[in-house]
């Protein structure tokens, strides 16, 4: 694809300036805070250091719909990328959340968050094909590529998904994209949480085109997506009440971007001192009896909890169920993320040194004191 991916001439200065900034920060050991659109500034650990703005490094470098691959620079607005893909009937199947307008491709990869389709379609990591990285030694490095299968060397590009900028500045990424599902139907069931979780896990073992689920307040909302014939047949088989398409689309968008009723309520509670927790669990974990209000997604694998209960109590309950809890919004007195086991903490420190020896990038966003 080398011949097609001719770079914009304006990129030179933008990249040159970034490299220079990193080189001098390395020499002076100045902490840098990598900034895309700033829409996920609330997420993760505290920000430290001088802002390093990626806005100038924007644009889709190449997009070939028949290759199912798009390559975009970090500062490219996520909205621009999604609109370009939609123009060709394709999409980012992991439905990255857009908490506010202005989010970027680099921020999407660094945060590694996914929307309602995560359990069926995979996450950002599953669609990473390649990345160009500016490491802490001010070197520009490319890993992976633009092809579907690639096992040349270690898979550094996938390691960057969810790395929160701790290994370096993501300059450009290549992502696998997929066609938008030809048909979608949303069904609604009145059912309590325990029964809903059991039902979702039973359905999961069958060849059904289930693409998303949400359980809240005695209601299960289920999205089917795939070939028209398969969706039609599944809808008849599963029963429930068919939700009108516009209403359904608005609901899933609201869930994805956290503008839905549950999250509006959560934001209010956070405003008066509560914390919104993201609980990542085995999908078969039973309902967790914790004080506060829960919304269950991903067939049981992601559960949101608004509560004022102490962090230690929540982390402990979730760990016992085989998962981990992140303080997503609001107060994070015990840190944003669950602590790491001793060998993993050691590997994290060594990896940080391997990529960013002077520890200039996003020091506390992913692991305290990395």
């Amino acid at each position, binding site marked *: *694809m*080398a*011949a*097609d991916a001719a*770079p914009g001439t304006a990129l*030179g200065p933008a990249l*040159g300036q970034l*490299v220079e900034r990193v080189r001098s920060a390395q020499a002076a050991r100045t902490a840098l805070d990598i900034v895309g659109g700033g829409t996920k500034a609330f997420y993760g650990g505290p920000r430290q250091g001088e802002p390093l703005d990626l806005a100038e490094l924007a644009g889709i470098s190449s997009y*070939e719909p028949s*290759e*199912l691959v798009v390559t975009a620079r970090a500062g490219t607005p996520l909205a621009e990328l999604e609109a370009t893909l939609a123009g060709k*009937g394709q999409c980012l199947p992991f439905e990255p959340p857009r908490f506010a307008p202005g989010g970027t491709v680099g921020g999407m990869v660094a945060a*590694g968050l996914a929307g309602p389709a995560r359990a069926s379609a*995979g996450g950002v990591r*599953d669609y990473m094909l390649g990345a*160009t990285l500016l*490491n802490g030694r001010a*070197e*520009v*490095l490319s*890993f*992976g*590529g*633009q*092809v*579907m*299968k*690639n*096992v040349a*060397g*270690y*898979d*550094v590009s*996938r*390691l960057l998904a*969810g790395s929160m900028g701790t290994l370096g500045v993501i300059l*450009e990424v290549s992502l696998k994209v997929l*066609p*938008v599902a030809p048909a979608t139907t949303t069904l609604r069931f009145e059912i309590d949480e325990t029964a809903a979780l059991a039902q979702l896990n039973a359905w999961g*073992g069958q*060849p059904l085109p289930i693409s998303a689920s949400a359980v809240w307040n005695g209601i299960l909302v289920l999205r089917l997506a795939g*070939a*028209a014939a*398969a969706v039609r047949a599944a809808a008849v088989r599963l029963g429930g009440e068919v939700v009108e398409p516009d209403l359904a689309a608005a609901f899933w968008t609201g869930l994805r971007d956290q503008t839905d009723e549950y999250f509006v309520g959560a934001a209010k509670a956070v405003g008066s001192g509560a914390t919104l927790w993201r609980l*990542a*669990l*085995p999908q078969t974990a039973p309902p967790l009896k914790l004080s506060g209000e829960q919304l269950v997604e991903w067939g049981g694998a992601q559960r949101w909890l608004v509560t004022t209960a102490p962090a230690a109590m929540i982390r402990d309950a979730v760990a016992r169920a*085989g998962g981990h809890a992140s303080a997503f919004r609001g107060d994070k007195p015990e840190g944003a*993320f669950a*602590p790491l086991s001793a*060998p*993993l903490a050691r*590997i*994290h420190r*060594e*990896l940080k*040194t*391997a*990529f960013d020896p002077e520890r200039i990038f996003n020091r506390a966003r992913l*692991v305290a004191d990395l």
Partner: protein
Amino acid sequence: MNAPLPASATPGPTIDRNARQAQVVAALSALLPAHALLHRREDTTPYECDGLTAYRATPLVVALPETEAQVAALLEACHALEVPVVARGAGTGLSGGAMPHALGVTLSLAKFNRIVKVDLASRTAVVQCGVRNLAISEAAAPFGLYYAPDPSSQIACTIGGNVAENSGGVHCLKYGLTFHNVLKVRGFTVEGEAVEFGGDALDTPGLDLLAAVIGSEGMLAIVTEVTVKLTPKPQLARCIMASFDDIRKAGDAVAAIIAAGIIPAGLEMMDKPMTAAVEDYVHAGYDLTAEAILLCESDGTPEEVAEEIERMLEVLSGSGATRMEVSKDEAQRLKFWSGRKNAFPASGRISPDYMCMDSTIPRKRLADILLAIQQMETKYALRCCNVFHAGDGNLHPLILFDANQGDQLHRAELFGADILETSVRLGGTITGEHGVGVEKLSSMCVQFSPEERAQMEALKRAFDPKGLLNPGKVIPELHRCAEYGKMHVKKGLLPFPQLERF
């Protein structure tokens, strides 16, 4: 395949091999039962290579531990003695990833062959690393589930080896690679400390280290247990076999199917010489007059499959297919696939030796690479058959040669290196699913800059500070690249040609 250079032995040539062997045997004898430790030449010879038989080395010791505690103790002892450790599964790898280290321990994990759990509710299986790929699907079958990645060697290869190589198969485009189908691995660090990467939830706190460990060719950690995702078995699968009178038309048909928004369950191509070789072997009724044959599979509910097959037939005929046949039943579908699945043995019948390449290119470059390979056949005076995971852009040219004839092996190696370098120039990669191992070390110099290789080396050291796990594989040493003398090809991904990189 690259010109062979011996992997250098880390401890240096000054160490007396016999003394070192005695020292390692003494240390490990205290930890393992006598039958789990092989060191006599006649016992270790079967381990001297993997599926890439052209590269061999005799290990100091072969250890076959039976428990995780033994693995931990062995690693701890080897770490203290600074002895290299090379993990080994079924030995079916095609890039020499499990080739022994002449001054190291080959750690065979063959005894870890127990299926711990198959769970319908969570659609997962927990298996020990030595369980065969196909055995997982067999154990899951009563639940209507299967393990999706299906490398051609699935009857023999183990899940531990699949994790090490990030193995693919013919259904990757729709169902993903090993990476997409593994949730968690359990094992040990080089020091012998128990560790888990990934988890039972869909993500973990911190960096996604599982992503780094999968495909790391045994160089970051030793894996003993794997939790895999199981997929509900589709109700039905049907396959279209389509002929083309021109390779370029076949390549365009592949792009047209994808452009029509279809993700087939399988999309494979064979060229004319390959078709002739496999037809002679399996008698599946392939069209011998076609320049290229495409196999396009659809799976799902009967309604879904009917709809997709109809759409694919339309696209194929619009792309100029000269003949199309849809499988009528499961027996015929398997017959269509029989040739493709037997491409390697079929090549073995028509040539004393063959060398299997494994590069990946952007799909649209398919005709370009096939035409380039045709020219190379003249240049190196050797024949080449081509099979292709067309949906993924993963090409398997089989270079035919006779190692007993003059410089044919050497010419075959040059031919192979030329294919890999051409693939990188076309925006692709030197290996899609077989791994780098020792086979493609020199080609790594072409694909990656010195800084990129140094970063990979630093990543390895973060897991393995002394460089004891499978040393000498994947990352070529600087002097090797200097001797190889080929320039690093700037990748299409790199949008900054104005930047100084050397």
